[in-house]
């Protein structure tokens, strides 16, 4: 098992720079998820760790060994591809045992390793089948099995679940996580799905246009996003962003119907800000809150999403537990705890500081 260190790594394709100096250390046994919108460079970074893309500048080391000039096969890694990349002309058993066969391991050892992995993944009945004779979920498990048999220092996952249907995806999320807990291997997992990132990661690294926007535990990112970009990327339904200003220890949210003011715990100077409020942090008040007209109500059973028109062009989302006590067309006033606000400087999107509400 090994630590992965990424030092000032850059990647250019011709004149196009896609990775701008990334520094990241992934601890031995840690499960790190790289997440971001498409084109943010997450897959490129993973492929550089794997050795499938050249590193334009900086160094990557695995287990203390600089791997910049090593071939993928010399890096002691295993990778699960989005397409699974199962060898179509080999059956499941040979697919899983291929890496050991390449190392000229004895047949018995290969059989044992493949058998063990197949057992853990419930693939035993399919060992003799070709990939095209398997369902999507089974193929995905074979791809995982192949990685397990490799017994690498680092597992790399490149959006491995995105070709599965929703139900299977949820199930496999747990499987991958269990697998990590059993093997304890350093894992780097790329996805564009923030739910996957939140549910699976020890630590999430959010990438934005080739730079790290924020790295931290899932809850850190959720509770204290470092920028408006991270705040909007993490969380579903997405955080509400409202225009406002900070001055003299208070925040004022500017709405067409009038400003809503709230005190802050600390004096943060004065600035134009974007105010972020998570949908679950809103609650109904008699008056004095954010006023809006109910447009749409989405029932999820255990909870309800209510979308309100507050005159901003985009609806405000209010997430309430249980069943709604409002109706479409009704005007509702919503209050919030100022301690739950996330404030971002307008324009740059940087976090303004942590607002602590005055009791």
């Amino acid at each position: 098992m090994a630590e992965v260190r990424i030092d000032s790594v850059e990647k250019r394709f011709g004149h196009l720079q896609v990775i701008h100096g990334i520094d990241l250390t992934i601890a031995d046994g840690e499960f790190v998820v790289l997440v971001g919108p498409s084109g943010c460079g997450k897959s490129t970074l993973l492929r550089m760790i794997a050795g499938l893309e050249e590193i334009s500048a900086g160094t990557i080391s695995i287990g203390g060994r600089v791997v910049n000039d090593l071939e993928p096969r010399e890096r002691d890694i295993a990778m699960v591809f989005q397409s699974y990349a199962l060898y179509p002309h080999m059956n499941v058993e040979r697919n899983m045992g291929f890496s050991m066969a390449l190392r000229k391991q004895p047949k018995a050892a290969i059989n044992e390793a493949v058998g063990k992995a197949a057992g853990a993944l419930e693939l035993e009945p399919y060992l003799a089948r070709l990939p095209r004779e398997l369902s999507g979920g089974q193929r995905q498990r074979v791809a995982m099995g192949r990685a397990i048999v490799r017994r690498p220092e680092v597992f790399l996952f490149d959006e491995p679940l995105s070709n599965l249907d929703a139900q299977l995806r949820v199930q496999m999320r747990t499987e991958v996580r269990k697998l990590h807990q059993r093997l304890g291997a350093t894992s780097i997992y790329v996805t564009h799905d923030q739910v996957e990132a939140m549910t699976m990661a020890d630590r999430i690294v959010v990438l934005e246009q080739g730079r790290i926007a924020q790295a931290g535990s899932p809850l850190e990112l959720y509770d204290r996003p470092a920028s408006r970009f991270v705040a909007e990327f993490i969380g579903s339904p997405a955080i509400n962003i409202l225009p406002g200003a900070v001055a003299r220890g208070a925040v004022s949210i500017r709405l067409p119907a009038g400003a809503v003011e709230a005190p802050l715990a600390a004096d943060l100077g004065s600035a134009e800000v974007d105010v972020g409020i998570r949908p679950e942090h809103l609650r109904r008040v008699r008056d004095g809150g954010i006023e809006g007209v109910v447009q749409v109500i989405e029932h999820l059973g255990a909870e309800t999403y209510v979308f309100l028109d507050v005159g901003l062009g985009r609806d405000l989302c209010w997430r309430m537990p249980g069943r709604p006590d409002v109706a479409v067309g009704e005007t509702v006033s919503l209050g919030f705890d100022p301690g739950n606000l996330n404030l971002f400087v307008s324009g740059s999107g940087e976090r303004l500081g942590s607002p602590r509400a005055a009791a």
Partner: protein
Amino acid sequence: MRSPRPAASLTDVLDRHLKWVTLGPAVIVFVVLTAFPLANLFLMAASSIRFEQAEEIWTFALWDNFRRLAGDEVFHIALWNTAYFAVVAVAIEMVLGLGLAILVASLNSFKGVTRTVLIIPVLMPPVAIGSMWSLMYGHDFGVFNQIVTGLGFQPINWLGSVDLALYSVIILDVWHWTPFVFLILFAGVEGLPKEVIEAARIDGARNRDLVFKVIIPLMWPAIAVALLFRTILAFKVFDQVFLLTSGGPGTATEVVSLHLYKVFFMQNELGYGAMLSLAIIAATIAFLAVGHRAAAAVGRR
């Protein structure tokens, strides 16, 4: 799990230089067998080459060769014959091939059988085809004249008549290559999106509309490919003409390749032959450029 690096083997060396190892042999073939001979064509075209015993004697004859090219009436006739042959033969083949492709796709049966039978002419030696057809065109006992006389007409001089010989060659070519056009266009028809045609039918299109307003426009890429392949091959025509008529009677079926062969190997004029070759290559490239433009223009429409 790390294993010590084994000593570099031959495979390791090959692997390290794989980029060149893989392309290298092809580059060698192209340089030695095409680029070098092509460059040599220029030298040869400027020379007159004679053989005396084992000696090659090269003398400068660029202007002579030029003058000869300009005044080579047989070459001009051959160019015209080749172009005429190519246009007429390819046009007929395209129409028949397209019709057959749409027909087989519409009948939706005997696809496999039709394909198996029709691929035979494509893969046969053209010389064997020429030989077979020269038997069939035979004046006294060929099957065509058996039919013609059986119907009560005079036998026709298929290959010996100045007016008819080129058309006899064209008929053979249509037999030979319509199946090839069919194969390409049939793959094109089969690849058409069924929903579009069904939608057109629901919109009220009759068969004729479907063919001209939906199927043919959608198949344009396949049609362009078939047209291109066939035209290229038609310009190279040699084997069947050599067998059927050897260019005769007179120059009625003289084609470019045949003329070139005669200059090279019957008149032993390597220098002038090279000049002719260059002229043919230039004409081919010019044709390719024009055809490419035209296809692109039609494709945009």
